[in-house]
């Protein structure tokens, strides 16, 4: 799907709803990224060490290898920041939502709230199989499928240039 249906384009309630969702997720990503960038103590190691389920072995291998861990830290810090800017300003938002979806989906898969899995780190809510990461991944899928940035966002200038 490359552009929005004409009905959504012309229905401001639907369009603004999607843009609001994009901007809010962008804001969330951007601050998650910046908070990690400015915190000298932050490392993905703690999250990875607490990993359960099928990717726990991979998570432990990443922590055990300083190079992999550094890569993981950078991918997270900069990945979240760049996806955040992309969604907030509406620039390359299709790729941003796709990459963002991959990031939060990996957070979900490394530590899913499945039955029988217990985590050391205290949770801020109550979850059964579905958690906020999964919902955010799903919301990013919606944003990928309904790209609003060519209408509201910097992508509008890029798509205009292409059309010209």
């Amino acid at each position, binding site marked *: 799907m490359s552009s929005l249906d004409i009905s959504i384009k012309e229905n401001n309630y639907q369009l603004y709803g999607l*843009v609001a969702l994009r*901007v809010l997720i962008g*804001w969330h990503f*951007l*601050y998650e990224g*910046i908070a990690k960038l*400015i915190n*000298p*103590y932050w490392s993905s190691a*703690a999250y990875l060490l607490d990993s359960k389920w099928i990717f726990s072995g991979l998570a*432990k*291998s990443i*922590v*055990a*290898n300083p190079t992999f861990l550094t890569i993981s830290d950078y991918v997270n810090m900069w990945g979240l920041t760049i996806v955040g*800017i992309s969604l*907030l*300003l*509406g620039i390359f938002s299709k790729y941003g939502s796709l990459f963002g979806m991959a990031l939060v989906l990996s957070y979900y898969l490394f530590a899913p709230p499945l039955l029988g899995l217990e985590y*050391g*780190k*205290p949770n801020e809510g109550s979850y059964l199989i579905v958690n906020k990461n999964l919902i955010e991944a799903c919301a990013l899928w919606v944003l990928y499928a309904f790209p609003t940035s060519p*209408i*509201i*966002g*910097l*992508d*509008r*200038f890029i798509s*205009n240039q292409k059309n010209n």
Partner: protein
Amino acid sequence: MSDKKNRTNLERRDLLRGLATVPVAGVFLVNLWRKMSREKVKKANLLSDLIKNKTAPAAVKSISNSRHLNIGIIGYGGRGSHLIRGAGFATKGWTETASENARKNKLNKQFETFMSQEDLNCSLVGVCDVFDINAELGINASQNDMRPGSKPKVTATRFQHYKDLLANDDIDAVIIATPDHWHSRISIDAAKAGKHVYCEKGMTRTFDEAIDVYDAVKKTGITFQLGHQNRQVEANEKAREIVQQGLLGPINLVEITTNRNSPWGAWVWGIHPKGNEKTIDWETFQEPSPNKIPFGDEALKRFFRWRCWYDYGTGLSGDLFSHDFDAMNQIMDLGIPKYASSTGGVYFYKDGRDVPDVWNATFEYPDKDLTLLYSASLSSNNARGNRIMGHDATMQMGGQSGGGSIHGFAVTADSESTQYKDRLKSGIINPDYPIFTYSPGSKEIDGVTSATSRYFANKGLLYTYRAGKRVDPTHLHIKDWLDSIRDGSMPKCNIDVAFHEAVACAMATESYFTGRRIEWDPVNRKLI
């Protein structure tokens, strides 16, 4: 005209819609800036005038003087073999198992940590053990090429009796890891023979022995190190800085604890299948003990589980209390208490032992306005950690004790604190969360106040860190001893602080035996 107007309208519409979310980014940046400056102010208020030195302890220093040293080990059992690994020698069996474990589990860093130890420029040249199997393992360790640094220059010779080992002129220094009832005799003889001594804790089995060892070390001037590797743990060094700076306020109560709940933790160790009258020199083993028994099943039990009897050690006192006492002495310069009393009993392990498995002791320091409280159970794993309670703040160290606390710590302000009164009132300090936390491996003391920081500070880790590099504190403690021998400086657990430990332990043990409070007479060096 109308076309032009339409185009301008379209362009305006394009511009508006294209930049519609940019103001949101502006709002984001304004709020980010506000949040960051708010936190900066908060952190500055917390830390700027509080902690003087926020950096982690210095990285391990390289050997200042390269004189090669020949060492001998007397008592190559479980602890002895760990100490010798700290010096850079492991048995072939150990290196093979450890590398296999590392291959199976990438998080198992035991092998990597051993192999990345600094080469301490020493040789293991003498091994003495009354159990043949252990002595052979010691020789094996001296022959193993798999070690940090170059291949071993020489391999070890076995000595049947420790006196033969001490008589060897090639040996510069000895590590004593025998049961406690042998510590004083070997330490004194070694000092007289001019050998430097690394002695495992507890320093001695009795009070009189402690006096004799102290005098012998002082008289001969050898370099003596007691085996409290907690002295090398960076969290303890940082804790000391905070306490010495008075950030906890007046401290009147310190609580140290031990919790274990397994037969292994209660010293019910395996009896080696090859242990028998031919492989064990039982008469030499029991020579200094007050009560003697003939070789047999009971003797075998006592040989491999010697920590369970007062004939050979002092139970919880010298084995586990001594570590936590020394850590507190390291942090607070406690010294020898004025009074000690203790109670306890054999309440869980009714296996013939005579050392208590539940034991509590109190130590009074009237000149410091302080009580030190120790409480131990070998039948509950409810790890309580150690707590230094001050009028202004409490420092909670780890959640596990024994073996030297290699954990982080968290300092939490007291809601009735005088020192932090204004900060508490203005909300800069929240008494529900720590004001400082220190986790092993972190670059510096973190002045945050959150639930997550508390969670990580309490997580136990097996290793200490130096400049972010994982190191076994036992290796650092051996290195500290060898470096001190070379440059004539005092090692970290030198005879002066070792003597504090030995006397404090002896006072509490004496109180358990007599059922009365024991007083230390520093003038006549006597227990009253």
